[in-house]
């Protein structure tokens, strides 16, 4: 049946049809929906793991046991999972294993713009790269066949535009496969030096066989359209090339991005006068062509940064560039903000008020860095807040420890905050860590995690007790505050910064967007009482603005959290709740 399907859903459909049995992933935009869609299939065991490394190892265990497995993550997640990746490349698999990695050129929702294709090269693994949903489905299935034929995990590289665009797919029934028998094989699966030394030649020989496979695989195809210009491209860049030039240029469309089909590339190059590589981010294919001694252009004009588009391709390669009308007025930007009623707001207001140095982390609460709160000094990667505050305080001692905090979300803490906390407990820095526990993984769209008590299907699951965990690590000072209560936040932060001991503050209140969270009636402003002091504007609530010189609450946004009410010295905020 033909249907419109999100690229990530199409990956899931392909995995499902190929008989995938076990999925373990950590959410990360733009990869999350692959795993969420898999969770809708009852034939597949699907879980959110605490982080990508655990997820990949869990998926590896499943393939070792003989069932086709999958693990999905965003580009920076692959950094976390790089350790198992490089050695799974040596052991190979039993049943097939597919690893999806979703890049985010343009950084719609990421802290960097790294190009995951480098990992395929570095780990010596095959990588497939679909250009639309139909290919996402087909390549996911093909990836399992390659995985089992060549005895290696296969990387499936997505990008935001393929992951988050819908296009037409045709679905097929699921193929049920018997489990491959598990057989003990110390030489293959126990990667100590003596065995790994003997596996490395296999890895190199496998790459040579994969390169041969790439030469004739239908994953790569040539679309001849004249002999003037030949463009080598893949993924969404292929779509932009087709949009601009249609069939008027020749295209070598790569579906397998590593290893490259060198003979096919040479043959294609020999048929065209001018060879161009169109690829987002790094010049990986282009450099490979150069290393082959081919005359090629690409990044001499095309950018290393951001996403491409049809206009960008047209502008650099000589197509028709479209333009439109503009207004003279400056259009103010509309950056993402913490939602009205976000539990992080009260906490960040308190940190701002106390002029704290705030070492931040990855999640919705990174928006605490945005004006007017501007209460963040650093954000690096998952878990870095806790590790970095330790180093910061070790470097500065008394100068910093009385005013510096680390902030980290519940899911990020589970992901890679615990090891940093262990370092504080072990090497004893006088650091204050604030766990922003909103009972969900927020930014990626509400995924469960080990602290929420529910699994990916919403069924009851194990629940890690944050207080008990921190105490077990040796923290004697662990306290919980409600971030809607500004006074309690202020007291907790002042006291924990003052005390000469490491401490953990758990700022606990569920995300205001969670369906089970009951909202209070919206507030309204008594304009007679409002003195236009703008104290309420310091929290950056999107529901509050100044109208005709007085504070005004947008009742469609306000959830009645009452943080603004606590800032008003004149009692101007009132509930709209009707008496009785």
């Amino acid at each position, binding site marked *: 049946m033909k249907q419109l399907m999100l690229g990530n859903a199409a990956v899931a459909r392909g995995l499902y049809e190929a008989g995938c049995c076990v999925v373990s992933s950590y959410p990360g935009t*733009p990869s999350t929906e692959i795993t969420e869609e898999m969770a809708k299939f009852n034939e597949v065991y699907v879980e959110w793991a605490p982080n990508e490394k655990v997820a990949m190892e869990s998926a590896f265990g499943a393939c070792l046991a003989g069932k086709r497995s999958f693990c999905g993550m965003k580009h920076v997640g692959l950094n976390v999972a790089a350790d198992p990746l490089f050695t799974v490349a040596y052991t190979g698999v039993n049943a097939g294993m597919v690893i999806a990695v979703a890049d985010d050129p343009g950084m719609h929702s990421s802290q960097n713009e790294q190009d995951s294709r480098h990992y395929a090269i570095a780990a010596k693994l095959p990588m497939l790269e679909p250009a*639309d949903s139909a290919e996402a489905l087909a390549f996911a299935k093909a990836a399992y066949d390659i995985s089992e034929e060549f005895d290696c995990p296969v990387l499936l590289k997505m990008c935001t535009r393929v992951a*988050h*665009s*819908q*296009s037409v797919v045709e679905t097929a029934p699921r193929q049920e496969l018997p489990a491959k028998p598990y057989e003990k094989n110390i030489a293959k699966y126990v990667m100590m030096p003596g065995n790994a030394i003997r596996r490395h030649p296999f890895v190199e020989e496998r790459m040579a066989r994969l390169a041969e496979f790439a030469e004739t695989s239908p994953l790569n195809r040539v679309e001849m359209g004249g002999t003037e210009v030949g463009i080598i491209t893949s993924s969404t860049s292929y779509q932009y090339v087709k949009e601009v030039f249609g069939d008027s240029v020749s295209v070598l469309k790569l579906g397998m991005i590593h290893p490259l089909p060198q003979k096919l590339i040479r043959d294609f190059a020999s048929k065209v006068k001018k060879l161009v590589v169109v690829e987002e981010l790094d010049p990986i294919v282009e450099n490979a062509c150069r290393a082959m001694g081919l005359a090629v252009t690409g990044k001499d004009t095309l950018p290393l940064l951001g996403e491409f588009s049809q206009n960008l391709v047209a502008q650099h390669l000589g197509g028709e560039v*479209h333009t439109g009308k503009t207004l003279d007025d400056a259009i103010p*930007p509309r950056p993402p903000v913490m939602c009205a009623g976000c539990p992080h707001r009260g906490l960040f207001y308190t940190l701002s008020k106390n002029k704290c140095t705030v070492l931040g982390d990855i999640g919705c609460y990174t928006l605490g860095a945005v004006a007017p709160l501007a209460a963040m000094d650093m954000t690096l990667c998952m878990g870095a807040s806790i590790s970095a505050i330790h180093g910061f305080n070790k470097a500065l001692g008394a100068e910093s420890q009385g005013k510096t905090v680390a902030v980290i979300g519940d899911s990020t803490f589970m992901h890679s905050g615990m090891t940093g906390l262990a370092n504080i407990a072990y090497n004893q820095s006088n650091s204050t860590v604030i766990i922003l526990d909103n009972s969900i993984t927020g930014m990626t769209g509400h995924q469960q995690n080990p602290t929420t008590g529910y699994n990916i299907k919403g069924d009851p699951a194990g629940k890690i007790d944050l207080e008990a965990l921190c105490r077990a690590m040796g923290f004697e000072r662990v306290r919980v505050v409600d971030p809607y209560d500004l006074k309690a936040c202020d007291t907790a932060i002042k006291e924990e910064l003052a005390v000469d001991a490491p401490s953990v503050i758990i700022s606990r209140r569920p995300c205001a967007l969670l369906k089970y969270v009951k909202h209070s009636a919206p507030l309204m402003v008594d304009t007679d009482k409002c003195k236009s002091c703008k104290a309420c504007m310091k929290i950056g609530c999107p529901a509050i603005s100044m109208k005709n010189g007085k504070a005004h609450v947008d009742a469609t946004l306000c959830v009645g959290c009452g943080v603004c009410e606590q800032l008003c010295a004149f009692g101007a905020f009132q509930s709209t709740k009707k008496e009785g």
Partner: protein
Amino acid sequence: MKTKNVMIVGVGGQGSLLASKLLGHLLMEQGYDVKVSEVHGMSQRGGSVVTYVRYGDKVASPVIDKGEADFIVSFEVLEAARWLSYLKADGQIVTSTQQIDPMPVITGAAQYPEDLVNKMLAAGAKVDALDCLALAEQAGSSKAVNLVLMGRLSKYFDFSDEAWQKSIEACVPAKFLELNKKAFELGKNA
């Protein structure tokens, strides 16, 4: 048929994903090749969001670029103005007259430009502006602005009323079907 382009723009959380789902379903049912490109993740948190819907015999790029949109459907006036350069020379804007202050305006760092609808008209754009929020509330929920806008947009297409109704039924939960159908009608007939 040459590819046609519809952009749906607004503020994160306003319901543009349902609008694009509905449009995608409708266009598929009409037998077109369709691509819909969405925004997920951080941009959704109250930020400016844009969804691209493209249809025709064969659609290549998943995105719409400057000067290419046949329609810009906007949940908010400033967002219509922000994406104006994406409109084709003879393109049509369908916008709600709702104004939502972005954070730089709330903090006083920037001004919300005045009279944007007239300025867009003066720039030569065709603009159909109506108070979709009031119509949605009239239908029973402020969240139904998306269906009001889809109703309004339907006037510019030749698809049968039945086709629209069928797609609404396919994309909207049964519990909210009547409300959404009413919102669609109010937008169409306003």
